[in-house]
């Protein structure tokens, strides 16, 4: 299985004539095959931008991103993406939405139909294949988005705060669903979030980013085996790890506010 991501001193600069904003300042890390990596940080710290660059949807201003040895210059067929907004096409059914990438990439529809139906079953949307998105709840729509991201069996899954718009209970359900999927179809994953507990629950490694400058300040390995279940939420190591991450985020915030005041 491919899916080895190498991010090397990547920067992203926005120059609007009036301000020059460094959205991402020199981030480097390596994602190994099959690793689920959470990118954690407060809002506006450039983590979404970093994800977009990994997916080839935004160009880097400096540095390179290579996937499986090849530099990323644009979107790739072996990368699946999920956004905060499920972005399902309202006029297509659930099944048609899931098969949309298959159609776009001109793969044989018949071959992938089976897989799409399997995925629908797996995420618990049995019977909803012919429904339209407006008939589904937010959580259900994100499940369809997961199926769509998985249908072409990508090596890498990039997820930009996919569950942030959902209510707390649905979010927990979706986290469990994602863990399930990961057990069955292991891939390399980059998952952007600002929820510390979610990051620890889902990931093998957590990369902590801060803003201004938008850099990586830590790379924490999560000490839990897979398969995971909700009981790990109560374990001491879980809360310790969460505390550690929280301190990392806040610690890095303080020097900046002092500098600001000066």
């Amino acid at each position, binding site marked *: 299985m491919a899916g080895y991501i190498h991010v090397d001193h990547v920067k992203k600069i926005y120059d609007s004539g009036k301000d020059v904003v460094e959205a991402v300042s020199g981030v480097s890390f390596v994602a190994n095959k099959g690793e689920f990596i959470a990118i954690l940080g407060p809002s506006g710290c450039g983590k979404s931008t970093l994800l977009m660059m990994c*997916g080839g*949807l935004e160009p880097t201003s400096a540095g390179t991103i290579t996937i499986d040895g090849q530099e990323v210059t644009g*979107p*790739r*067929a072996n*990368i699946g*993406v999920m*956004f905060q*907004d499920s*972005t399902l*096409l*309202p*006029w297509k*059914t659930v099944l048609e939405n899931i098969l*949309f*990438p298959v*159609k*776009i*990439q001109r793969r044989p529809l018949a071959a992938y139909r089976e897989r799409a139906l399997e995925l629908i079953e797996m995420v618990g949307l049995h019977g909803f294949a012919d429904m*339209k998105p*407006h008939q589904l709840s937010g959580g259900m729509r994100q499940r369809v988005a997961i199926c769509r991201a998985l249908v072409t069996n990508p090596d890498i899954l990039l997820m930009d705060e996919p569950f942030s718009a959902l209510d707390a209970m649905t979010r927990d359900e979706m986290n469990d669903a994602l863990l399930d999927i990961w057990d069955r179809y292991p891939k390399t994953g980059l998952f952007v979030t600002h929820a510390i507990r979610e990051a620890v629950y889902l990931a093998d490694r957590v990369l902590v980013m801060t803003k201004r400058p938008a850099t990586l300040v830590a790379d924490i390995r999560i000490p839990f085996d897979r398969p995971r279940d909700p009981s790990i939420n109560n374990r001491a190591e879980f809360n310790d790890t969460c505390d550690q991450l929280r301190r990392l985020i806040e610690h890095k915030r303080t020097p900046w506010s002092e500098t600001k005041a000066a």
Partner: protein
Amino acid sequence: MKQTMAPLDLMLRPPIADRGGRSAALVLRGMKTVQFGRRIVLPCLLAATLLCAWEFGTRLAHLSPLIIVPPSAVLSVLMASYAILMQQAVPTVVETLIGFALAAAIGIMLGTALVLSRRVRQALYPHVLTFQLIPKIALAPLFIVWFGVGPTSRLSLAVFMAFFPVVISTLTGLLSADRNAMRMARAMMASPWQSFISVRVPFALPHIFAGLKVAVTMAMIGVIVGEFVTAQAGLGYIIMMASSAGDTALVLAAIILLCGFGLLLYGAVALAEWLIDRRMGVSITSSEF
């Protein structure tokens, strides 16, 4: 998405279902039927009342037939001169349809072109907007100067009037495509053409149809004004002729026929919109009627 317009008092009254029980559900259903019935009966009552008032009012008040004639007289003229009226309706309707079709085709193409090139859009769009806002009808005599009194001038006026709403609505519609959906398509390796056809265009359809509905009425108006001024053929011509001859009944008959065709053509576009609605399974109908 369609918005339902609930009458104000029904929104403010406490829900009947709160009073509990199966009888409540029956009452609710009864109320809904009454409400639905009212929506049909009341306007019909209004129309009937107005017609009666018109009929008996004109007869009783002995108004000069040069001013107004009772609807019965209009009806009899309509039936008597049916052949001539329909014969004259043909050029009007045909010119409207051709004008509309041309305006729609050119308008959609130009609207699409404006979406594809930002620079072209910046250069052309302000001019398009300006043309939309000016009283385009004032240019009717100009078209006569250029194209004479034949169907060309009427047709060009119709296209001129119908074209701008289509361009503007097509452009607005295509630009209204959900950004995230477009980005997602790009992430899936869609080519620019695929993104355009599979994502942008369906999002644009409600706007485009709104523009087409305006365009069909505008095309007809252009043709009618053309007929008023060129006075050659068509229902507009009949109206002018009958006016100067003092034949009020014929004037009214021609007007009613013209309005009827106007409604029919508008209805045809609305029907097309409804059919596509059904095929796509979402409400693309624009929020107006």
